[in-house]
């Protein structure tokens, strides 16, 4: 019976259901790369539709696209550049959080690097908004800090 299972996993597909009720198919070998999915498969079996409450139909196809390329070993720098080219900063962040939820390490690392690259040219205000961080400095404290590290602001466009 074990042999039966192993010969069928190579072509087996797993059904994933997003938080907004849509169903997507993914190959078992790609599912292995998403540790959260794999854990659910181990618990629930691979015949059941795996529920993913925190991932939605906007993100999941993109993630599946990434891992489809990954299992054929075709992920190149060009592919990765193309993958994020049309995504804005917020879309990348949502994808990043989904990769975190799914425990999809390769995608997670790639997207965290991409976000870091995007933030290199950004202002302090932008970063606050992006991460939803409150500014708890007084105006005096903040201007002192900015003065002390004026060199790190060179070439950065301030917002508003």
């Amino acid at each position: 019976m074990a042999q039966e299972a192993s010969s069928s996993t190579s072509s087996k597909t797993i059904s994933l259901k997003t938080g907004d009720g849509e169903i997507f198919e993914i190959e078992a070998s790609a599912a292995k790369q998403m540790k959260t999915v794999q854990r659910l498969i181990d618990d629930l079996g691979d015949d059941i539709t795996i529920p993913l409450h925190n991932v939605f139909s906007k993100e999941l196809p993109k993630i599946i696209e990434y891992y489809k390329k990954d299992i054929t070993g075709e992920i190149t720098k060009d592919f990765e550049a193309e993958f994020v080219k049309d995504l804005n900063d917020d879309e990348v962040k949502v994808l990043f959080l989904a990769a975190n939820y799914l425990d999809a390490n390769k995608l997670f690392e790639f997207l965290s690097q991409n976000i870091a690259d995007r933030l290199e040219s950004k202002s302090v205000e932008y970063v606050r908004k992006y991460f939803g961080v409150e500014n708890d400095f007084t105006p005096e404290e903040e201007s002192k800090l900015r003065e002390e590290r004026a060199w790190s602001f060179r070439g950065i466009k301030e917002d508003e």
Partner: protein
Amino acid sequence: MEKSVTLTIMGKVSKHIPDDILFSILSKLSLKSLNRFKCVSKSWSMLFKNPCFMRIYRDHIIHRNHSDHDDNDDASLILRHIVQAPRELQISLYLVSGDNFENKVKLDTPLPSQELGQKIIIVGIVSINGILCLTSMVVADRKVVLWNPATDELKVIPPSPVEYITSFRIFFLPQIHGFGYDGVKDDYKVLRYVQYNQFGISYEHVRWNKRSYEPSWEIYREVTRGGNLILKCLC
């Protein structure tokens, strides 16, 4: 208007990214951006004092530098710019990188003159993974330290046990040959020699384990007039 665009998933607004995954992003930023983002909030200004973040940051630098780079990226050159102003010397430090040294990042943190005085030598004029090896020109001091300008952490390397062994020791400026990173042992190495008698020179290997901060010594080779001896001493 921006709020409704940011992360509204099916009506749920979730802006908060947990620290550990936030660190995954921040650890990949340049020193310039990290310094700028210290102005984001009080907790962000303490990033470099956060051991959890520093661990991730160091690991990232080391893996980035030892992964697929052909060129020797883990060492950055230090540019010391000295301006003779009336009555004082203005010294600025820059980390330079790039093929033509076009990337220049100024190091904010002043050199640790409380520990080493004013006449500081940067060993090898190099920064390994952001860390500098410094010593003093003043012989009486004989101190060697490892210093991280990003976090202002300083570790004093203790005097070598060899210096106390023999009465033929010649009082000597510590000759530091080099400072580097051993990717195999995942440790920093400071190479120095101490002349302890007229005929012998020994090369010492200091390992500074960045995790436990316990420097240990390894005497690499001892040459005496009579022949070669290999001494290994781990303290």
